[in-house]
């Protein structure tokens, strides 16, 4: 009898254990920090100095891969196990703000001696504002840029990268004629929405209308963008390929399968590392060409946010201030190649002397945020799919725009209902 009771008790304890785990005992001076992506690997290194400066604060760093971060964070939200501090993709901020999970940072930033908001690139900082409130401090920038093969462009008869779509089209055409049937002028991976997003942000129209109640993809501007995007495939300038099909983008860039590629800053380090030495001078970065002149790009990046449930906000803010210091961002850049969001960091020697980074500095004055609605990620995927349909010839540009608009309106139905209820202003 005793034995059985003991077994039952043990079973009950096992059953209760996971419940007990959800609320960790959290001292006011313990900061849990979830760092997403490769940055997570260097985060522990990066904060060593902070730990010696503030021996009263204890930091727990947790690494997360980008591919699982979104799911993991939402699950953590549902289970009430979100960390104090996290690096969040800035397009996710509206979503977590809709969940009331983020702490507004305006007052903290105003009182701070370390974080001077006017030192940040305005476009990037703005992507952290939802309805006028600041919810994240930019940590690093992920703005898409044009990578190009200088040697191939030169062979085709051009000495400088394009600044307008028309110029770009001439170059794409000339390169295609030069490289022939088996090679291409540009890579626009069909499984990425970013290149199309960048091109559509260059047009003046909004992508969503009525403060994000309805899609605005039937606009002439988006129509033109999609037409331009699709024409690059129709004229065989771009291969109908996804990244998984290419297998190794860096090798193929080196082999000259394509001469233009729209990608983010992390690829500077990758290309440097992976391309053979004789090609070291063969490639360069350039700001995005636009419809009529130098164009905008997306204000992507990762930001540091404090979650609402945090029980140690002062300590978390102290860590955030430390991570935002110019000297620390400088080191962060050296460790990862991530572009810092503060102008003062850009004046540092290593960054100022990098020829590849120069294009970013020019582009950062021309960045634009994608629509700030929680549903954006999903709409962006639908956008990619609409483009894929056009590229694969299952749909015309007109039909794709109409269908995309309808789908977007459907996705935003709940948001409209919420807005009408006055839950979202």
């Amino acid at each position, binding site marked *: 009898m005793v034995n059985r009771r003991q077994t039952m008790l043990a079973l009950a304890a096992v059953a209760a254990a996971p419940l007990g785990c959800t609320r960790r005992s959290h001292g006011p001076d313990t900061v849990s920090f979830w760092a997403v992506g490769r940055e997570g690997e260097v985060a522990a290194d990066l904060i060593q100095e902070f730990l010696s400066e503030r021996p009263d604060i204890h930091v727990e760093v947790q690494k997360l891969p980008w591919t699982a971060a*979104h*799911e993991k964070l*939402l699950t953590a*939200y*549902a289970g009430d196990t979100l960390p104090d501090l996290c690096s969040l993709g800035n397009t996710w901020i509206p*979503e977590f703000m*809709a*969940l*009331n999970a983020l702490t507004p940072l305006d007052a903290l930033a105003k009182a701070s001696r370390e974080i001077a908001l006017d030192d940040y690139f305005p476009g990037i900082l703005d992507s952290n504002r939802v309805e006028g409130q600041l919810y994240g401090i930019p940590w690093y920038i992920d703005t898409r840029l044009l990578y190009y093969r200088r040697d191939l462009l030169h062979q085709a008869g051009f000495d400088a990268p394009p600044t307008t779509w028309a110029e770009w089209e001439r170059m794409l055409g000339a390169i295609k004629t030069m490289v022939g049937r088996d090679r291409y002028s540009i890579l626009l991976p*069909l*499984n990425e929405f970013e290149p199309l997003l960048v091109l559509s942000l260059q047009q003046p129209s909004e992508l969503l209308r009525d403060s994000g109640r309805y899609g605005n993809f039937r606009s002439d501007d988006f129509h033109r963008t999609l037409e331009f995007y699709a024409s690059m495939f129709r004229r065989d300038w771009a291969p*109908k*390929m*996804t990244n*998984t*099909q290419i*297998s190794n983008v860096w090798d193929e860039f080196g082999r000259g399968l394509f001469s233009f590629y729209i990608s983010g800053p992390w690829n500077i380090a990758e290309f440097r590392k992976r391309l053979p030495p004789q090609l070291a001078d063969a490639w360069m970065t350039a700001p995005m060409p636009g419809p009529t002149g130098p164009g905008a790009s997306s204000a992507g990046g990762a930001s540091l946010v404090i979650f609402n449930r945090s029980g140690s906000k002062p300590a978390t803010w102290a860590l955030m201030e430390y991570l935002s210091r110019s000297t620390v961002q400088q080191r962060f850049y050296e460790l990862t190649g991530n572009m810092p969001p503060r102008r003062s960091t850009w004046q540092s020697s290593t960054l100022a002397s990098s020829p590849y980074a120069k294009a970013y500095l020019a582009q950062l004055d021309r960045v634009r945020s994608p629509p700030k609605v*929680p549903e954006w990620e*999903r709409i962006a995927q639908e956008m990619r*799919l609409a483009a*894929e*349909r056009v590229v*694969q010839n*299952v749909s015309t540009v007109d039909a794709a725009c109409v269908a995309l608009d309808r789908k977007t309106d459907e996705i935003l139905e*709940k948001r409209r*209902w*919420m807005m009408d209820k006055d*839950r979202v202003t």
Partner: protein
Amino acid sequence: MRPQRAAWWFVTPALIVLGVFFFLPVLAALAMSMTDFDLYALDDFANLRWIGFENYARLLREPLFWKSLGNTLYFVALGVPLSIGVSLGAALLVNSKVAKFRSVFRTVYFAPVVTTLVAVAVVWRYIFHTRYGFLNYALASIGLDPVDWMGDPHWAMPAIVILAVWKNFGYNMIILLAALQNIPDDLYEAARIDGASGWQQFRHVTLPGVGPVLLLVSILTMTGYFQLFAEPYVMTEGGPLQATYSVLYFMFEEGFKWWSLGRASAVAFLLFILMFVVTVVQLRLGRERGGA
């Protein structure tokens, strides 16, 4: 204590576990499928709307759902017979008396089952590669044009079938091998004395011998194949043009990517109904054939 009550005492722990970890979640999911549970509802339950069968109605009007269902059925229709055929063929070969190194082959054929799909996918991506792939190299050597396996919407699903069959046939092979070894040698001997050819022996001795196991294997394989998810997830992300988008993939994206758990639950129940019906039909067919 009456024996009946004692029996209840013995069953109770199992019933509680089943109730808490199976029936309760299923009922909760059923209830959830009648709501528009999403991100907003996660924040505040006041944002939850009870919408009855609206999720189901909307799904039945959703072209992507039908497309994913069509893809899944295509995968099952192509994959299950092929998989069982290959398993049976491999089992016959491994069981054959003339074959050498039988245990080596048995291990080799079973190896894909225990390897990780993610690792295997990296290798297969290169095998399917349009420019450098082994498969296209083999096709070229017999004079066929290269196939854009992962990029052409018509070829992506067959490519996934090839991968899935290669990955899974070893498991069924082991089960079928056990069934083959259970067929008494006397039967083959008697058939040979009666002058039966190899094919006749296979048709009238081997097949009836493994019949019941074959039915079991086909039900297991079919239910497994209906749950197609990991292969497109790691190989194609549902593309190109959603040609490898399966019902489970649809459910995963709705539920865990977009967090529309209401709709995802509705998909789960539709898939459950479908699999239930197909299994019943299969069992009935098997029974009829067994009775005949």
